């Protein structure tokens, strides 16, 4: 099959559309998580989403729905307990991993799904996953336009809300829930590490090369989408699981950015000095 055939084949159209939406949304969320120094959230929530997907399966819920419920519950607990930073997510990772492995080890269906969540088999995505991804995309667009300035102000001017007795908590809770929802849907489609890599790597690249916050968002989204497309074709062409290929593509992109920066610094005569 040629590249256009792979992209346009009806069998692969739904997964491709689902992956594109996820690869657009997660890097944007990742940029904000990086800004808040909470990027480990992605891995913590992905683990919990994967574990709750298996629990949901046991009671007859679709994996994407079970994952969403578990991740949202974790987001609410995290926000209400005012746990912030990567420490809270470190504990989530441990809890999620422990539950995921135990459930997968003790049920037949759980073992199969657990394997799929680790592999990140985007190609099994259907109408339900696409609907969830589109819902996530719409929610992200509506929410981020509204809360992004508040989240950024809270980061750079952390006393502003308190000094003016403004209800800042609702913005943080809204963002925590958006992250949880995004990670749950992404984990059910691109897998646990695929979701984490889409949050972490595009934002990391953008933070290093973007000239402004606007460009950070643009570069993050572009890196996410282009890497997803490349990984999609490579995994199909070489008959490999999608998740590890996506992580490989993203890591290669990050390595090329590092190399290009080092070469530029070498030819420019060393790193730029801060001018006072």
């Amino acid at each position, binding site marked *: 099959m040629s590249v256009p055939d792979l992209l346009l084949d009806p069998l692969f159209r739904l997964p491709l559309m689902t992956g594109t939406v996820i690869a657009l949304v997660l890097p944007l969320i990742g940029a904000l998580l990086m*800004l808040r*120094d909470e990027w480990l959230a992605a891995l913590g929530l992905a683990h919990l989403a994967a574990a709750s997907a298996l629990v949901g399966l046991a009671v007859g819920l679709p994996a994407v729905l079970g994952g969403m419920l578990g991740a949202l519950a974790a987001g609410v607990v995290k926000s209400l307990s005012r746990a912030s930073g990567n420490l809270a997510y470190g504990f989530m990772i441990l809890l999620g991993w422990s539950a995921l492995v135990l459930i997968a080890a003790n049920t037949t269906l759980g073992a199969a799904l657990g394997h799929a969540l680790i592999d990140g088999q985007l190609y099994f995505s259907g109408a339900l996953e696409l609907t969830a991804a589109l819902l996530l995309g719409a929610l992200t667009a509506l929410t981020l336009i509204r809360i992004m*300035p508040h989240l*950024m*102000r809270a*980061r*750079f*001017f*952390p*006393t*502003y809300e*308190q*000094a*003016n*007795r403004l209800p800042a908590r609702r913005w943080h809770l809204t963002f925590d829930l958006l992250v949880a929802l995004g990670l749950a849907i992404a984990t059910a489609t691109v897998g646990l590490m695929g979701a984490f890599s889409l949050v972490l790597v595009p934002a990391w690249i*953008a*933070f*290093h090369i*973007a*000239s*402004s*916050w*606007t*460009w*950070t968002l643009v570069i993050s989204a572009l890196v996410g989408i282009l890497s997803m497309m490349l990984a999609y074709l490579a995994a199909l062409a070489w008959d490999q699981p999608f998740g590890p290929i996506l992580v490989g593509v993203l890591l290669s992109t990050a390595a090329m950015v590092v190399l290009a920066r080092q070469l530029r610094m070498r030819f420019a005569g060393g790193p*730029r000095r*801060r*001018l*006072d």
Partner: protein
Amino acid sequence: MPLLTLSGLVAGHGDPVIGPVSLRVMAGEVVGLWGPNGCGKSTLLNAIIDRAVIFAGQIERAPRLRLAYQEQWSVRLPIMPVTGGELLRLMGACDQALPDALRCLLRRRIDRLSGGQYQLLRVWAALSGGADLILLDEPTNNLDPERESLLLQMLAKVPAQRSRRLLDVGSGRAVLLVSHERRFLDAACSRVIEIG
């Protein structure tokens, strides 16, 4: 009507650190709080923004008072792809009257600014962000003499600026600033209160 009134305020964190302090800040004033290190100047500002324990006395704010608070140590992350202009917009700060020395920073990433440049940009964000009362904690941190004089020029413009909301309590806005540099306070403030 004052923008802020402190009446017999005793504040601290675990234990009382400062007080009793009574003072009023009127619209159009730049009030300086001077005292040696550790006397509780920053704790006083923290009490005003509800970040310290009040053991006695009270704080009264004018209705609908909008505050801006510039902390002694600013949030500065090692990698931060946000420009000076984007930082100002977060606080709704106006960049039309921005001094030329700061205008060139609008398009630069804040993680590539010097400590003094970043400090001045944040002070400008507080001063021009539409707050009625601006609290500045040691605003001369990281500033060389040249930038200190720029800060004095910025502060001198504040009393003449009209509040966007509080037309009923006076025509101007006000600054309450804390510093251990008496010379700077004398140059910047309409009155200086010694505490501690």
